[in-house]
């Protein structure tokens, strides 16, 4: 009997203790959520909200703050099905958008091919040349207009990415400083400035104009057989490839090594400070650091949520133009394949070279997007030692 009473008492004690722990946990969670909402009220996110709300082709109308709050409360779920649906619908709507221009190109190319086929029976060599000249000129006019608009879109998106970098970095760096990542912030501050001023300026003022030059050279080299500037195209392409490769390698290696080192140093500093408190102040040392940790943990969680929301903003800014350009390039290649047996070599060659030029535009856009992606990722992953 005594044994049974003992067992019941032990179970009751355990239950009481566990209830106490649970209550303590709830209290801490409430304190943390209060802390987070206080910090959210005090940090200025208006520019980020404006940027996020102005992104075109977002899948839903959710605003920036609700994304951040959902991430903080753990309610944000990545639904892969809806993302794939969004990507498919965006791709096919882009295909629909580009179809009128591309069908016109195909019709002109087929018309030109048929007319050249009839040459031997009805037309002279001179008239045949004039037909080819007119057909080529109309295809060039159709596609060059589209290429200029794509070039302009790429420029606008890169400028938008620079704007996102300029808006997002002060917020994240402030939160990083607030959470004790002083060295990380000191490392990332010039790195972010280098990305938004240096790297993006190089893309805007050197690489994009070079892509423009390639477009112009491709038009010229396909327009007339007497003008041969294919080696110029190769030369310019080489410069672009080297520049992009060099920038990504230097920026990526520099940022990763510096970022990881500083994050480790900050982590060790924070842990050393905690250890010092726990040991220098006996008995309640462990309890003392709790309240202080909650303030820092709030900042870290907000920083990470803003980082992830910025990644979502970056994704929606870049994906739509990339899909449009990719679909256009793919259909151009298809038209080039279709027209090769019927029409003049120059028409299919022109379509292929335009498709290559679009690829350079996509690569330029994705390179800048990738570098900002890496930067945001490292900013999000740094100074998390308190958690």
């Amino acid at each position, binding site marked *: 009997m005594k044994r049974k009473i003992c067992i019941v008492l032990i179970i009751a004690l355990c239950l009481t203790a566990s209830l106490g722990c649970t209550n303590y946990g709830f209290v801490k969670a409430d304190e943390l959520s209060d802390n987070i909402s206080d910090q959210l009220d005090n940090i200025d996110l208006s520019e980020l909200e404006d940027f996020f709300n102005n992104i075109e082709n977002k899948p839903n109308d959710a605003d920036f703050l609700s994304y951040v709050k959902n991430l903080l409360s753990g309610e944000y779920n990545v639904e892969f099905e809806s993302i794939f649906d969004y990507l498919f619908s965006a791709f096919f709507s882009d295909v629909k958008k580009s179809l009128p221009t591309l069908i016109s190109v195909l019709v002109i190319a087929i018309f030109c091919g048929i007319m050249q086929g009839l040459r031997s029976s009805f037309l002279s060599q001179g008239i045949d040349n004039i037909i080819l000249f007119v057909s080529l000129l109309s295809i060039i006019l159709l596609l060059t207009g589209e290429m200029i608009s794509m070039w302009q879109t790429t420029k606008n998106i890169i400028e938008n990415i620079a704007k996102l970098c300029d808006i997002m970095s002060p917020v994240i760096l402030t939160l990083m400083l607030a959470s004790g990542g002083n060295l990380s912030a000191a490392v990332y501050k010039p790195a972010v400035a280098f990305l938004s001023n240096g790297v993006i300026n190089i893309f805007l003022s050197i690489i994009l104009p070079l892509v423009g030059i390639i477009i112009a050279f491709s038009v010229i080299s396909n327009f007339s057989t007497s003008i041969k500037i294919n080696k110029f195209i190769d030369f310019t392409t080489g410069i672009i490839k080297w520049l992009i490769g060099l920038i990504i390698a230097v920026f990526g290696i520099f940022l990763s090594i510096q970022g990881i080192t500083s994050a480790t140093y900050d982590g060790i500093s924070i842990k050393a400070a905690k250890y010092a408190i726990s040991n220098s102040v006996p008995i309640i040392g462990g309890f003392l650091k709790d309240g*202080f940790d909650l303030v820092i943990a709030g900042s870290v969680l907000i920083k990470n949520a803003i980082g992830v929301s910025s990644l979502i903003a970056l994704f929606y800014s870049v994906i739509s133009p990339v899909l449009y350009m990719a679909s256009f390039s793919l259909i151009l290649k298809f038209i080039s394949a279709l027209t090769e047996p019927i029409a003049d070599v120059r028409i299919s060659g022109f379509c292929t070279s335009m498709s290559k030029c679009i690829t350079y535009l996509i690569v330029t856009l994705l390179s800048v997007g990738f570098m900002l992606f890496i930067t945001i990722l490292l900013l999000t992953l740094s100074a998390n030692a308190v958690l």
Partner: protein
Amino acid sequence: MKKWILSLGIVVIIVAIISLILPEGKLGKYIKSICSLIVILAVLQPLLNLKQIEVNFNTLINGNDATIQVDFINYISGAKIKEYEKNCNLLAENVGLEYIETVIEYSINDDAKIVIKKVNLNLKDAVIISDKEHIDIIEEVIDAVAKYLNVNKEIVVVYE
């Protein structure tokens, strides 16, 4: 650049029209080579004007730094200081002195770090809850607070 592409386009169209009109023969070959020279000159035009281009590498690398939100740093430092003050009171309680009021005077340096200037321990309403001597407890509290805040003992001031 727009001017260059436009002039290049015009030159190319003119050259293409000329090669369409020109009859085959020796003269045609000469004119075609002259046209090719003109195209090359048009292509190289930006290189000839390279002296006029000035790239300021200084602004490329050292542009505008990200501006930190000072108001938020002030707010978060205030919150951290409140936690420090609360913990100092708990610390004193643990040593054996209840109901003390801690006020920390601080500033924020350029790296957004808190620099503690003075720690005021107000013992006006304090109650001793230990068997230790009055003077020893105050010394112990000063010691513990200085250790916890990682500051010099001299800046921990007691008001009775």
